[in-house]
């Protein structure tokens, strides 16, 4: 028998997992919102982010066991990884997608799959196929409150994700560049008439999406370890989360991520299916959503164009 407290525990674990999905889903949804294109290489960006974070963290740490420095080094490594992935994301867009912008819709999709192979095979070639552990930058002994246990890395994941989402939301709603992104996703030709350089907006979108994926990749490393193939399944699930929430919609990606994380975590014990089938839940949910509300939970109907 699974007790209520156990379900609450699964729920809590689901929120942590969902926060990671949400961070990664944002990149899919922002790019889709503007280019109507699924960036299938996005999952591999999170893998690059995780490796960059791990290597930077290890290098900064050296032999130090100083607790404060471990935390500082971890956040510095996260910043370095965000910057590196932002530049990588912009570079990939320039080289692999921009030249195909006026081509057949299938062309950029195939190019993205190509980029995905280059990144994951490149990482396997450089780092080997052995997965690595991302060391905790603190003592990860669980804290038990009223029977519920939460680990410091879960707290870190939730706090960092919330901060990222708040920063992104205010960027998109308040800043000049953020509003230009929204305008571009609503109506590209009219945005150009306003004087918005759409190429610049697209570059920024890839930069921001990739930086968020870097954070997601580092946070995911605690649970899934760092490996060349780590981006595939997590990326795919985040994509499912973006579709569940309504692809193209930023709040939708956040909501979709959290919902998917909770359903995965609570679903298996609730339905009494083995946890090895957990991955199937995401795709079952995807199919149900596509049947019931194809535009996703917060997706808008395409009726707005008068």
């Amino acid at each position, binding site marked *: 028998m699974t007790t209520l407290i156990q379900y609450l525990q699964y729920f809590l674990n689901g929120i942590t997992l969902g926060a990671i999905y949400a961070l990664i889903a944002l990149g899919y949804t922002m790019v889709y919102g503007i280019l109507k294109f699924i960036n299938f290489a996005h999952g591999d960006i999170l893998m690059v982010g995780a490796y960059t974070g791990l290597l930077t963290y290890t290098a900064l740490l050296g032999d130090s066991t100083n607790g404060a420095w471990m935390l500082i080094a971890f956040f510095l490594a996260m910043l370095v990884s965000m910057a590196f992935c932002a530049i990588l994301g912009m570079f990939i867009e320039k080289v692999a997608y921009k030249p195909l912008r006026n081509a057949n819709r299938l062309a950029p999709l195939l190019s993205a799959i190509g980029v995905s192979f280059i990144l994951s095979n490149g990482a396997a070639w450089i780092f080997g196929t052995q997965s690595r552990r991302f060391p905790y930058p603190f003592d990860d002994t669980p804290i038990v409150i009223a029977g519920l246990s939460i680990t410091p890395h879960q707290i870190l994941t939730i706090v960092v994700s919330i901060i990222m989402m708040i920063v992104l939301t205010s960027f998109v709603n308040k800043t*000049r560049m953020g*509003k*230009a992104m*929204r*305008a571009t996703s*609503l*109506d590209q*030709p*009219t*945005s*150009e*008439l*306003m*004087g*918005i*350089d*759409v190429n610049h907006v697209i570059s920024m979108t890839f930069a921001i999406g990739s930086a968020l994926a870097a954070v997601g990749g580092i946070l995911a490393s605690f649970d899934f370890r760092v490996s060349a193939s780590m981006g595939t399944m997590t990326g795919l699930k985040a994509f499912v989360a973006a579709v569940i929430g309504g692809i193209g919609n930023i709040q939708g990606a956040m909501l979709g991520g959290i919902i998917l994380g909770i359903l995965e975590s609570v679903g298996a014990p609730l339905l009494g299916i083995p946890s090895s089938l957990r991955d199937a839940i995401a795709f079952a949910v995807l199919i149900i959503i596509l049947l019931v509300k194809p535009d996703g939970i917060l997706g*808008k109907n395409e009726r*707005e*164009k*008068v």
Partner: protein
Amino acid sequence: MSDTLLTIDGISVKYGSIEALHEVSMSVKRGDIVSLIGANGAGKSTLLKAVMAQVPLSSGSITFEGNEICSTKKHGRTTHQLASLGMALVPEGRHVFADMTVEENLDMGAFLVRDSKEIDRKKEEMFDFFPILSQRRKQKTRSLSGGEQQMMAIARALMSSPKLLLLDEPGLGLAPLIVQDIFHKIRKINEEDKVTVFLVEQNARMALKNSTTGYVIETGNIVLSDTSENLLNNEKVKAAYLGE
């Protein structure tokens, strides 16, 4: 400073094998309201799109304030660069950012204005000029009526204080009284703010009554050009466009 603001010199535009504009030439004098009238499908929107570099030219060139802005050369100015030169187009069908509020739409119109005080001043000016927008400033633009959306689209274009305002069928699909109101506003913008206006219309009477110079376009060719007054009295125009 030259008297001519915009010169269109022998431009042709093709969509695939169909030629939508054939060696069209015209000019817009600083301070004027110039109208281009023509039936549906004659090439009016294509002409405005060509001016804003939204479609490529297959021949000819376009000059704004004495500088060539569009030609058949590969690296011409892009649309957003033209906006920064002081050209603003209110596209056919208004193309408001429906998911944004009226105020946010105006902010987008002021994208190139860096000074936030200037943006606020300009917004208040627009709210004075279009009082109905003032009441709707916090509403999503999708909830506005057609006439209100048209006014918002014009206000949005004026936020950048353009030298040349291009209007693509500002009266399309609106009730006669509202069309009158909009044309009245266009004249005021021209007279009081000294904005040069180039408008295209199917509503020939409205356009010619409210402009100084007129051109008539038929299947991609300019067939007539004269003062608007003369065109209003031209027998051919009367028969074909004024229903007299």
